């Protein structure tokens, strides 16, 4: 799936963007997209996701660098000639037109005949299960319905590439999950390429082929969801995606991929070296809460274990979320499945915990 530089469908090459001539909002963006890929840009507010999307759509010009679409540079191509479908966060359905007219608009400006237009509009509306709404006005529909129409409008003229800027941001959780599924389904059945912007990590993980994590105008990591979650490249990604325990320390021993880290209270733990290069370096070890073990038989032979004191057990239905004090930190979280033979923990209890060294990643210190 990952495109090489030459046959990429969309590519950003050393793209930089500044709005005011003083600060760079996008710093050296390099990104290649294959045809049919679903790529999500994920990142905190202000990290430059929308800016990237707007440069691709043609509403902002890149201050430096080149953007290519289907092998051709598009820096000088005006937005209406790029043939890119776009879904906006606030839907941007034209309020003075009915749903049918909204969908007809892109076809009319392409000079398409009436019968052909009608067939395409019907097909697009059926695609999002909104066939009965052609004569409604946007104001007469719910947010979810408007979102579907916006989707249908962006797809009705058969664009190869569709950009979506937080399209589900205004919907409630249940509707959002349902729409995520539908968008994903449409992506697969139509074979379109999608660039999707969100700051909901759940959305990014469930929908995408690859996720580009943005921070501070740079891509921090570009990887498929599983890899992003399980093998974050740096502390930012580890902290941004999913819940994470972070233990600061100093590299005590480094042997290839394997590192031993001495925590602030002197205890030793095992980790995989990701961002550390030498002994004595400061590091932040990140461990997912569900990968922490406290049953001795589940901790690998020879791995280090450390002391922990149970502070609080929160019953969450499917899981039990346990907060512990580890190496002086009160916020260490362990999640375990709520099964019938689960060993009950009670506040105040002292246990020893450990993990597979592959699950603890020694990252950069932020």
């Amino acid at each position, binding site marked *: 799936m990952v495109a090489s530089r030459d046959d990429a469908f969309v590519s950003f090459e050393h793209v930089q963007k500044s709005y005011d001539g003083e600060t760079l909002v996008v710093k050296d963006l390099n990104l290649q997209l294959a045809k049919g890929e679903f790529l999500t840009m994920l990142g905190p507010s202000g990290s430059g996701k929308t800016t990237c999307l707007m440069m691709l759509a043609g509403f902002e010009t890149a201050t430096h660098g080149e953007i290519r679409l289907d092998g051709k540079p598009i820096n000088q191509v005006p937005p209406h000639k790029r043939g890119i479908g776009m879904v906006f966060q*606030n839907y*941007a359905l034209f309020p003075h037109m009915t749903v049918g007219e909204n969908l007809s608009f892109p076809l009319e400006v392409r000079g398409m005949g009436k019968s052909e237009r009608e067939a395409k509009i019907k097909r697009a509306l059926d695609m999002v299960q909104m066939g009965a709404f052609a004569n409604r006005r946007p104001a007469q529909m719910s947010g979810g319905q408007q979102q579907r129409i916006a989707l249908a409008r962006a797809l009705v003229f058969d664009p190869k590439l569709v950009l979506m800027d937080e399209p589900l941001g205004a919907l409630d959780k249940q509707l959002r999950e349902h729409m995520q599924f539908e968008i994903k389904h449409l992506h697969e059945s139509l074979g379109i390429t999608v660039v999707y912007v969100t700051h909901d990590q759940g959305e990014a993980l469930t929908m995408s082929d690859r996720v580009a994590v943005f921070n501070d105008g740079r891509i921090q990591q570009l990887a498929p969801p599983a890899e992003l979650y399980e093998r974050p490249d740096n502390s930012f990604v580890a902290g941004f995606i999913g819940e994470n325990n972070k233990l600061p320390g100093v590299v005590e021993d480094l042997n290839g991929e394997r590192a031993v880290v001495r925590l602030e209270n002197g205890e030793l733990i095992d980790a995989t070296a990701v961002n550390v290069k030498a002994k004595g370096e400061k590091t932040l070890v990140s461990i997912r809460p569900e990968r922490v073990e406290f049953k001795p038989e589940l901790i690998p032979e020879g791995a280090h274990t450390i002391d922990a004191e149970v502070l609080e057990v929160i019953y969450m239905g499917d899981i039990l979320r346990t907060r512990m004090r580890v190496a002086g930190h009160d916020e260490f979280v362990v999640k375990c499945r709520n099964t019938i033979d689960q060993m009950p923990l009670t506040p105040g209890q002292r246990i020893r915990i450990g993990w597979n060294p592959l699950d603890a990643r020694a990252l950069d210190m932020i």
Partner: protein
Amino acid sequence: MSDVASQLTTADGRPLKAALASAQARAKRRAFFLVLPLLLFILISFAVPIGQMLQRSVYNDQFSKSVPALSQWFAENPKGTAPDEAAFAALASDLVLMKETRAAGDAGTRINYVVSGTRSMFTKAARGADKLEPPFMEAMLELDEDWDNPLVWNAMRSAASPWTFDFYTIAFDLERDADGKLTKVDETQRIYFRLFIKTFLIAGVITAICLVLAFPIAHLLATLPMAKANLLMILVLLPFWTSLLVRTTSWIVLLQGQGVVNDILVALGIIGDDGRLQMIYNQTGTIIAMVHILLPFMVLPLYSVMRVIPVSYTRAARSLGATSWTTFRRIYLPQTIPGIGAGVLLVFILAVGYYITPALVGGADGQLFSNMVQFHMTKANWSMAAALATMLLVGVLVLYWLYDRLIGIDKLKLG
């Protein structure tokens, strides 16, 4: 369903509707007392004067109050009866009355509105009225042969009643011929209705110029960052903050024959020194100065509408494949209609009734309808002024109604 509703009661058994009404009555009373001062003010300062004006346009007793005998003769003889000796006798006795009360001028003026050149007939006849001897018909004709003019008698018959549509007849450039039929007045005399139409045309031109000028300004204001937009807004509002006379004077300085604009054009060689443009004290001057004064009324509603049109609409249209012109025409423009409507209506209504600017810079051909109203007011011809003002009011109301039919008054957005 309604039966059930009417049977609903509160916990202590009172009907729900009655309980609700009495619970709300106190609040409603208090709200009413709060708006009462405003209500009274509007009543006294607006409704009453308008009512007065409407009444004056159809009520004028200048003539009728001085002619009791003639009124009686008119009552006894149907319309179309030629004036006989009895009629002239009645007229003579009324003229005596006029002489005593010094009302001949007033009464003559009233007839003069309808048949011009007749005022002096009354003043002259009244002067020697007590010396008139029967037969009165001959005696009167001796004084002025126009006394048997049917137009004069028709006018007197109509003016003998204080209720009259004569002033509207005049305002529409109509007159009654000897048979009492309405005909158009002579081409050269058609001033009122022609000016009325011209006023609406000029107001239309001014509105159109304002719209063309204001649209880009408002768009610029709406798309600029807030800080810069506010600065520009001050410039737009500047005309509001300068005295009307100062503004008008500056237009005179700029536009007069020896003014700045002409000097520059001459200096640039665009026009010769003998070809200086006449841009003030005529229609052009009226239009230029009024556009300047009314421009903010167009900019503000447009701005307030454009400000809230999200940029995503135009972006969406562009991404869907529309050129910038198509996007403007089909997406942006339709959404500014409430602002255009409000601005056009506001500017047009203000322009139609404008008085001071045309009076100051309009010269002879730059006068508008209101100047005519003012002219009749200075001449103490209140009925004529009222009739003209009523025409203006009705014209504006018709426009308002048209606007409501075409665009819908609920779509109006003033700010």
